[in-house]
């Protein structure tokens, strides 16, 4: 089956799913109060988009701020931990534990200290995104082939040259992989913070739609955020493929 065939099958299955869904609601299998028909969702897309776009911008901006912080901290910390044997041995259990603990548990505390505003959302995004990035970069930095470094040093490379020409290209794939995972976590953090204690932003809007039983608006908003995040992640993936070609 060619590329077109695959795309066709995907479109057909999605179409069939939508039809089935429409039929399920029309025939009363699902209650339209909780599950709106795809037609109703499509009709709600326009008005919801108008309501959602400014909030979505707000949410994205906070996610990007938190993401930038997380990438900075995660990459620097990961490189440092990955290149020092002793520090790695000492700190790794803490990093892994911090990665494993559900971050929602800390969220109320962040809200207590930072309030209901932007700071809380940005910090939550950073908290969610920093550990996966840190772990991936540290693993990548540890796996750099030492013979490459030895060879470069033996041929008279300076420290700066070794970092730039040997270590950086070798670590790049794990940095990009970490960044790709990190963006989803950053958005998740912001949306969760907004749902828990927001006064603006997309998460707050969606939580309010759910509590007000605005089902079709809620589904439309979910669709808008999903498409947006898929676009963001796919473009990062595209970027990472180009970077690996550069390498």
């Amino acid at each position, binding site marked *: 089956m060619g590329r077109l065939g*695959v795309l066709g099958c995907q479109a057909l*299955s999605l179409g069939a799913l939508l039809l089935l869904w429409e039929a399920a609601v029309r025939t009363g299998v699902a209650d339209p109060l909780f599950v709106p028909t795809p037609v109703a969702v499509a009709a709600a897309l326009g008005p919801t988009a108008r309501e959602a776009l400014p909030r979505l911008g707000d949410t994205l901006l906070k996610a990007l701020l938190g993401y930038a912080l997380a990438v900075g901290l995660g990459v620097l910390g990961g490189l440092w931990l990955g290149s020092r044997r002793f520090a790695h041995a000492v700190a790794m259990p803490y990093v892994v*534990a911090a990665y494993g603990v*559900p971050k*929602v548990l800390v969220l*109320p505390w962040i809200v207590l200290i930072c309030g209901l505003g932007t700071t809380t959302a940005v910090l939550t995004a950073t908290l969610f995104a920093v550990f996966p990035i840190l772990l991936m970069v540290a693993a990548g930095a540890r796996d750099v082939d030492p013979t490459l470094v030895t060879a470069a040093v033996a041929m008279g490379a300076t420290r700066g040259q070794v970092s730039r020409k040997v270590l950086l290209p070798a670590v790049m794939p794990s940095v990009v992989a970490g960044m790709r995972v990190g963006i989803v976590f950053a958005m998740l953090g912001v949306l969760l913070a907004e749902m828990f204690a927001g006064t603006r932003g997309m*998460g707050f809007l969606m939580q309010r739609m759910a509590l007000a039983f605005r089902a079709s608006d809620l589904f439309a908003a979910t669709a808008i955020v999903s498409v947006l995040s898929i676009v963001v992640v796919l473009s990062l993936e595209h970027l990472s493929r180009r970077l690996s070609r550069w390498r």
Partner: protein
Amino acid sequence: MKVLAGRIAIAVAVLALWEAVAAPLNPLFYIRPSVLPGALVAMWRVPELPPLAEHVWLTVKEIAAAYAIAVAAGLWLGFLLGLRTTVGRVYEPLLAALYAVPSVIWYPSLMLFFGLGPASKIAFGVLLGFFPVVLSVLAGVRQVPPTLVTVARSMGARPFTVFRKVMLPAMASTMVGGLRAALALAVVGVLVGEILGARAGVGYVISYAYGLMMTREYAVLAVLVGAGVLALDTAGALVEARVKRWAG
């Protein structure tokens, strides 16, 4: 030995720093680590919160249900997509795209559909736990060397024997990693659901304590739940290591 000393030094330094920074600040918001043991004892003696044992038990049941459903559905779909290459090529990109969506955005819809009771928490745990299972099964199936399968078949092994003796050992370590990640995510899903809106469960008690500004009690609960989750994850890591040794 030096490593252990370093680890203890970090823990002590962090706690001391936190204690020192928080000391002059409002004790209601900046909870110092040193008040936690006392708060735990006080909670034990004079229970002001809803009875914990019931709520913990409910959360454990929700997690178990979410994990069981996520694993069953994930294994089924993973093998369906992994063993039939055509079906896999059509649906795997769709799954990968869905995986790129920050999962919390499904929660309001689930809450609307399943209500504030345990069902919406279980559904969210299933949704989160399902993806790592499917994706790890897909990755695992791809790791099975096709020559081994061909050889086993040509020597007359039946399909089930091929599956058990050839495929399963070759994909076990990847799959078990996915199963462990799924458990962690099922826990997260249930907890997030309970904290965002519930009438029962550990997350509800945490939200309740926080809502009444019982910040010490909240901190004690958060630390206890965090420790419980870590213990569960450590047990998962031990199982994973064992399976990896078995699979070689």
